[in-house]
Each structure stands twice: as structure tokens, then as C-alpha cells.
């Protein structure tokens, strides 16, 4: 096709490329690291011993990807190499693979990416506690695909495929947060943050009830594509096209235009946290983060005109044009049908919508070795509530502070997607704090730096302390 058509897949790709390049929501490996200046992002009840100011845009950079299938499940070792092919890798759709679907989950296949970049941040002691001021840019994107989709891609035959629903979601906003934490008594410390959320863009794309019935003399495809886009200045660009077989024309989305991006919505959120220290060696903490919403000013809705495409062959076909109903004529009818099925049409701005943030819950237990208080262990349960994309994680860490300006830790984690390990090194001499850590070892990456397992995390930051 010569013209550009924004199908669901292209829209998905745009969002994925735009929002999977970066950053996570907080370095959970540092939850129990005392010198980590950004513990308050994991539990607002946690403060710092020092005041700090983040180096703009470099104070806290988090990038995290997670999923139960990854690049190495889609791109596999090529069984044709080296005798029949000079390329070492191939896609899972290569028919010479003995088990092409082994990397996919038999239920849902999920990939997500989170990003956080602290634009400005500062923390200071005042008013009987510890206060934080932050401006962060946050992004979270998730894709959820059913197993049946991959089975259909590998082995489409005369069968019925109840593929189910496909989901893509992306949420992007800037938050302005004010936090305060204080000791209530010797054992309890509480904290909270109020956040003003400035929405940048939100996309919620679904293909619902996707089925493919390729049995008998009638093939049907069904899918209800729905795309909700909320972004200031967002506009679908459409093109008018004549039907090939029937009279009239139809319009379809073939591009997008963002004219004057800016604040597309406003919301509020809160973080709540508490820390309980029954004695000097034990500490129990809990936090609820990102309890909030964003109201978007627009809801640019697009959907496919027809939810079904039916192909039942060519009937009563004329051999020459004078007979009418030639194969070309009937093919034109199917072309019109399929254009109505997979092209999205702009249904206009539905006037706004409200989306909830993906709330998080962290619950931690920490134990300091009485014999060597520079070492402490922690167990953290982190849950991310995001509807169909909800995930949970358990992390067992060991932390060490060998020097008063150096601390770090390693940990083992098991979550909805994988098991892995993480680490943190935090260097904080007087006047300076730099940290680097991973909630998941990146493991291997491709030549293009794409993590092979979809589970990777990098956090780093540089701050000035005083």
C-alpha cells in the first residue's frame, strides 16, 4: 500500500518506541540502603540525614523493563545456521524451530517499561521532619498479549482461534510533589506526599474479543479495536478514499499530528507511608504510592468501522467483465471490507476522561545484624496495581555499609515475570552523592542495547548534599 495507514500495530509501535526507552519508578534494591537519598520515593515516611539538591535531570534516573517474554523469546537461535543461512538468529516464526512457542507464557504475555527522570529535587530538614520537593517526569507503558496470538502467528490453519484481548497502555505525566515525614515517637515514623500531576499523554489501546475462524467455507475475523488518546494538541490525520466496489468513500486515520503539545490534563495523587521500629534491629515499613488520578482534557477516540471481516470465497464469478461479478470485482468488495475492518476511523474527541494512576504498595521488613550492625537484611514486597497489567515482586536483600561514605547491597528477586538479582552502590562523601544500581541485572543485551529478557533495570543519580 502506498499510503501510510495508522493501524493499531503502528500506533502501538509509536507508543512503545516513545515510552520504553527509559526509566523506572524507583530503585527497590535501595529500599533498605540508608544513604540512598531517594528512599522517600519508595516510602514517603523515609527521610535522609542530609539535605540535598539534585543535579538537574541527573539526580535520579530510573529505567526499568519487565516482562515474562523478551527479545530472546522472539529472536531465537537459527537452526539453519551455518549450513543454510549466514545469520545466527531468526524469529520464533521460523518453521525449523523445534519449539517455537517455548518462550511464551501459555496465559498472558506481558512486557512493560517504566521510566522516571527527576528534573528537580531537593530535600531538607525543617518543621520537625524531613521535607522533599520534586519535579519528576514519569512514564509507564505496558503491553499484554494472549498466547493464542503467537500460536496463530506460528501455525494458522483451518481452526478456530479465540485470541482474546490485546492491550497496550501508556501513561506519561509530570508530577510536582511535596513531601514531609517525621517521627511520631521513637518507634513510629510517618510520611506523606501530595502530588500535582500534569498529564502529558495517555494512550489506552485495546483489541477486544479477537477471534479468527478459519474453518469451513466461511472465514471470519473479529476484533473490536478501540484507541483512546489523550494529549494536548493530538489530532488524528485522516484521508478520504473511494471504495473500490461500492459507491461512496470512507475516511481513515493515516497519520497523527500534535499541534502544540503541553499539559493535557491535571490530576492529584498522594503517597502515604509509615515505618515502625520495634527495636534497633527490626524495622517494618509500608507505603502506598501514587494514589491518584489524572483528568485528561480530551479523549481522541478511534475505532475500526467494522468489527468483523468475512471471507467466503468467490461465487458466481464472471470470466470476463461483460458478465459482471468478476474475481476482480469480488476482490474489490473484500478489499473494501478489510479496509473497514483494520483501518481506524476518527470518532472525534469524546470530551475528556479520567484515568487512575498505577498505585503501588511497598511492604518491607528489615533486620540489622546485632553482631555487625553495618550489615542488614531486608525483605520487600512491592505490588504495582495497574488493572490488567498488575504485577508483584518479592525481594530479599543484604546491605552493607563498610564505610560511612560507601554503602551498597545485593538482592534476589522473584516477581510476576521472572527471578533475578539486583544491587546498589551508593557513594556519598561529604557534599556529594552518587549512586548506581539495578533492580534486575540487565543480563545480556542486543547489539542495539535491547535487553534480551525484558527484565532489566538501571538507576543512577548524582546529587549535591549539604
Amino acid at each position, binding site marked *: 500500500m502506498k499510503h501510510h495507514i495508522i493501524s493499531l500495530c503502528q500506533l502501538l509501535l509509536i507508543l512503545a518506541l516513545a515510552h520504553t526507552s527509559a526509566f523506572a519508578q524507583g530503585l527497590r534494591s535501595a529500599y533498605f540502603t540508608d544513604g540512598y537519598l531517594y528512599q522517600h520515593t519508595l516510602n514517603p515516611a523515609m527521610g535522609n540525614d542530609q539535605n540535598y539538591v539534585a543535579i538537574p535531570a541527573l539526580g535520579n534516573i530510573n529505567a526499568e523493563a519487565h516482562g515474562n517474554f523478551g527479545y530472546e523469546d522472539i529472536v531465537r537461535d537459527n537452526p539453519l545456521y551455518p549450513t543454510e543461512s549466514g*545469520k545466527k538468529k531468526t524469529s520464533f516464526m521460523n*518453521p525449523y524451530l523445534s519449539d517455537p512457542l517455548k518462550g511464551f507464557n501459555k496465559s498472558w504475555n506481558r512486557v512493560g517499561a517504566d521510566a522516571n527522570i527527576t528534573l528537580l529535587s531537593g530535600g531538607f530538614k525543617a518543621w520537625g521532619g524531613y521535607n522533599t520537593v520534586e519535579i519528576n517526569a514519569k512514564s509507564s507503558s505496558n503491553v499484554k498479549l494472549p498466547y493464542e496470538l503467537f500460536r496463530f502467528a506460528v501455525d*494458522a490453519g483451518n481452526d478456530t482461534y479465540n485470541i482474546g484481548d490485546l492491550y497496550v497502555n501508556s501513561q506519561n505525566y509530570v508530577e510536582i510533589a511535596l513531601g514531609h515525614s517525621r517521627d511520631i515517637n521513637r518507634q513510629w515514623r510517618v510520611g506523606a506526599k501530595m502530588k500535582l500531576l500534569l498529564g502529558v499523554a495517555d494512550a489506552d489501546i485495546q483489541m477486544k474479543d479477537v477471534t479468527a475462524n478459519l474453518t469451513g467455507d466461511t472465514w471470519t475475523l473479529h476484533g473490536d479495536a478501540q484507541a483512546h488518546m489523550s494529549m494536548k494538541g493530538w489530532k488524528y490525520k485522516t484521508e478520504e478514499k473511494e471504495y473500490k466496489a461500492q459507491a461512496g468513500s470512507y475516511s481513515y486515520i493515516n497519520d497523527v499530528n500534535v499541534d502544540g503539545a503541553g499539559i493535557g490534563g491535571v490530576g492529584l495523587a498522594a503517597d502515604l507511608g509509615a515505618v515502625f521500629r520495634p527495636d534497633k534491629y527490626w524495622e517494618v515499613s509500608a507505603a502506598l504510592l501514587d494514589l491518584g488520578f489524572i483528568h485528561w482534557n480530551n479523549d481522541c477516540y478511534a475505532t475500526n468501522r467494522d468489527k468483523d471481516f468475512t471471507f467466503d470465497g468467490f461465487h458466481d*464469478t464472471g*470470466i470476463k467483465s461483460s458478465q459482471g461479478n468478476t474475481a476482480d470485482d469480488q476482490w474489490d468488495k473484500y478489499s473494501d471490507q478489510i479496509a473497514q475492518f483494520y483501518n481506524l476511523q476518527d470518532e472525534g474527541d469524546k470530551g475528556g476522561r479520567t484515568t487512575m494512576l498505577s498505585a503501588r504498595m511497598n511492604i518491607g521488613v528489615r533486620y540489622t545484624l546485632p553482631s555487625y550492625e553495618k550489615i542488614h537484611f531486608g525483605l520487600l514486597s512491592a505490588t504495582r496495581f495497574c488493572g490488567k497489567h498488575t504485577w508483584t515482586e518479592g525481594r530479599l536483600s543484604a546491605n552493607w555499609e563498610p564505610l560511612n561514605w560507601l554503602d551498597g547491597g545485593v538482592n534476589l528477586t522473584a516477581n510476576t515475570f521472572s527471578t533475578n538479582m539486583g544491587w546498589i552502590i551508593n557513594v556519598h562523601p561529604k557534599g*556529594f552523592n552518587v549512586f548506581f544500581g539495578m533492580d534486575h541485572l540487565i543480563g545480556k543485551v542486543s*547489539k*542495539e542495547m535491547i535487553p*534480551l529478557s525484558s527484565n532489566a533495570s538501571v538507576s543512577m543519580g548524582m546529587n549535591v548534599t549539604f
Partner: protein
Amino acid sequence: MNIRIPFLCSALILMLSSGMLQSCKDNDFSFDNIDATIGLGSDELALPGGNSTKEIALDDVVSLNNSNFIYIDDNGDYQIKVDGGSQETSTVSIAPFTFKTSSSISSTIPMIQGTFQGKLAALNMSSTTPSEVEDLSSVACDQNINVTIKVPNTVRCVDELTLSLPSFLLIDHATNDGANLSISNNTITLNNTVAGSHTMVLHVKSIDFKTSSNLGSTSFDKNNHRASLTADIYLKGRLSKNNIINMGSLSSISGNATADLTITAATGRFHPVFTYDNFGSVQLNNIPDFLSDKSVNMNLYDPHIHLNFNNSLPIAAKVSGRLIARDAQEHTISSVDISTFTVPTGNSVIVLHKQSEAAPQGQTYVTVPGLGNLLKTIPDHIDFVDIKAEADNTQTTEVKLGHDYAMTEQYSFSTPLQLDADAAIAYTDSIDDLNKTVKKLSFKENTVGDPTSINGSLKLEADITNRMPAYLTLTAWGTNLQGDSIPQSQLSVVVDKTVEAASDTQTPATTHLTVTVKPQSNNVLHSLEGLQFRFRAAASNGNNAIVGKTINAKKQTITVKNIKLTKTGKLIGNFN
């Protein structure tokens, strides 16, 4: 504390981190290093069945290519008709001949009182006859026999003179010294013929060679081409005493006869020969596509060759010849001898045909069983040569001598398109430009690296309803990029059966047909450029033959229903 140490550690951490990332890089996972070999569908996939076509008439798929010898009539029947061009004419003429007097005998007859008689004169005449004359019955002439009678002056007059001539000489008019004479039964009577010389002119109308007479004879020698006659002129007289002047010397009457009889017409048997170079040529231009395939056998059920004659010779002609079908390089493709047939006098239509059948009024049918051979392979032209045309020498008729008799001929070829038992026509077509699609496709190899270890095929099934009175056989084969046919051993195309023929358009025959295309190797698939197929319509399937049914362009249709396409074997696309 030396602040440099923490900064060094920080820098070291960052460097180590970068180094870790770099060392974890697996360059095998690169967008440039991904083999785009992709399986397309499952091992077996059948497209939705129930596909069908409208009724397909022959006229929908085949083209006459502006042919000059085949057309579709108002009823939709295919008709073959081609004219032989201009008329061919030959002229014969039998030359006139003349009986010349070879000898004339003069006699004297003594006169006596009373009656006297005797042979006055005798004519011996002969002529060389044209070679075309086989037998003479009679000849016509418009000539005179001159008889001179001399009456001596010893008499005043002769009371009565009676001349008798042979009955084979038809005398229709006579004069004596210019005065008309009456004739009865070839006898002429003169009264009171005075002394002196008298000239009688006897007009001979015809000579009858079949009548005998005691006063002469006629003869015809066919082998020597000679005709002759001997005619005696006999005289009887009566002399009364009163008319005798000198009784003592009555003397005699003398006479002689002369004649040159030029014959202007003859009745008999003749054998003139018409000379023709040929009876013309019919040119077959722009062969329709369903007759141009090498498998075509146009053995027509009952072709007709119409010969229009105008024979001005009053004798029927015996004609024979040979029809030769030739290609554009004048090579003989086939020939058919045409046995002798009779062309009557006047206008006639002689129809050479293949089947034995009764001729309609006004036409003469001549059965030529081998006539169907002429178009088995469509020639460039058909010549009617080696013509022998000669008058029927068994007939007795009258011809004008010296007259040109012409026989003109014009022939045309016509027949409805009806197939004989071994005949077949064929329609061929092709699907081209396949290579740009199939070059990227392969079937999965059971042994990787062995392109022949595949087990893939494409199967097409359909129900074909046939209203044509012909058995349909489909053959198909692939062609490669060089345009050469791919052998069946490499690309197998198997059609499981022949489509049954309809006995008539009201009773179609339905056949379930299966076509299986199976490449023996992926290399064959990658070289495939086109698929050629041929539908051959034959009158016979080897067991039964439907002959003599006219092929119709509009009413005899083929309908294809329940078309189903099934692919077996995992198909692979190589999108590298």
C-alpha cells in the same frame, strides 16, 4: 578523608557500569543478523470452498482472431466457410471437318423410248475427323451437291427424269437450273427436261451415319479419325416417241456430281478434355486460438466442399482431382484424392462430403470418406489440383463444331464445426509472472539442506458441469524463467480424470475433478515463472464417441462449482 577517593570510586562505578553493559552485549542479537525465514500457516490449509463461476460459454474464453474461415452464426453455432476465390474456366472446341470428294464417277445412261435407268454419278467423299470424335451418328452440314445432267439433242425433251440419292443424305432442298424441285424420300422428279445441260443443286442438311442405303455407304474409323461416304446418284427416265427427234441415234444421258460438305455440327460420342491448372485455392487466415494448439485434430465429422459448375458443353464431364493441404512453406500436410464424378451440362452444384447421405434437390453428393483429413492440422491453404476434366464419351449428343464450350468452376468449403471420433480442439492459456511471488516461497524440507526432501502440494478440486458434446481433458505444466517447460518429473501436475461430455445441452454432465500440483524440489519452485494449461475437447474418451454434434459458442457452457484449494505442506517465506 581524601575527597578524591569517593570521586574516584564514583567514576570507577560509572566506568564499571558502562563496561558491564558493554560486556553483556551479545552482538549476535542484532537486527542485521536475524534470518527472516517465516512459516506461513500450518501444514495444511484449505481456503474457503464453495467458490464457483458463472456459466462459461466458449465465446467467453476463445477468440476467433478475425479468422477468415470460421464464424459464429445467428444460432451461435461455429461454422467453417471459406471460398476458393475466383472462378476457374476452361474451354474446349471440336474443330469442323469437311467431306471432300475424293473421286467422282460420271456415267452415261442410254436412252430408249419408254423407261430407262442407271447410275448417273457416284461420289466418293472422305474427311479427317477431330481426335475428340469417338463416334458419329450424324453430321449436319449446310452444303450442296451439284449434279449436272446432260440431255442429248437427239430428243426434244425427256418426259420424266427421276433422281434417287442415298437415304443417309438428308436433302431438304433442290433446284434445277434455279427452279425449285420437290423432293420425296430423297427422290427428285424432273418433267419434260429439254435437251441440254442441266445443273441441279441438292442442299444436304445432314448425313446419317447410322442409316444404310443401297445407293451408298458411310463409314467412320475412330482409330484413324476418318469418315467417308460413297453416294450413288441413280437416274430413271421416261421418254415418249413424240420427244424423240432421231430415233436412230438416241445416244445417252450423262451426268456428274460434285460436292464439298463442310460439317458444322455432329451428333455422336465425343471426348474433348478440359484443361485446368487447378480448381483454385482456399486460404485459411488467422487461425482461432482454439484451433492452433499442436494437439488439435480437426477431423470434422462431415465437411462439405461445394463445387459450382457451369458446363456449357452439351456433354456431361467426368472430373477428378486432388485436394492438398499445405502449410505456408508449401509443405504438404495432407492430401485427399477425389475420385471421378460427373458434372452434368448446365449449372450444377457438386458437393463433396464425408458422410453418406442423401443429396437435397438441385445438388449432387459425392462421398469422399477421407475428406476430414484436410483440416486435421489446420493448413495455410488447400489447393484443388491434378484436375482431370473430360467429356463423358459414353453419351451421344450433338455438338457444334468450331464452337467454344466453356466449363467454369468455383469451389468453397463449408461445414458446421462438428467433431468426428478422433477429433479434438484445444484452448490454452497461462498464468504468468509467478516468479516474483514464488521465488520467496519454499516448502519445509524434511532434511534441512536437501531441497528435494519436501512433501508439499497444492490441490484444486471442483465440480465441472459440462454442456458441450465433447470430453474435456485438462493438462497443465510449469514454465521456468527461460520460458522452457518444466518436466513432470520436476513439477508434477496431475489431473485425476477427464470431464464427461454432455449428450446434449439439456442434459449436462458433471464431473468432480482434482488437480494436484506437486513440486519435487524447492529449486523447481524458485524457478517457476508460469503455469500453462490446456483444455482439450475431444469427441471421444477412448471408449465412447459423440460425433456429429455442432459446437455452439453460446449455448454449450461449462460451469465450475465447489472450487476448493488446499495446500499441504508447511509453506515458508524467505524474506531475507
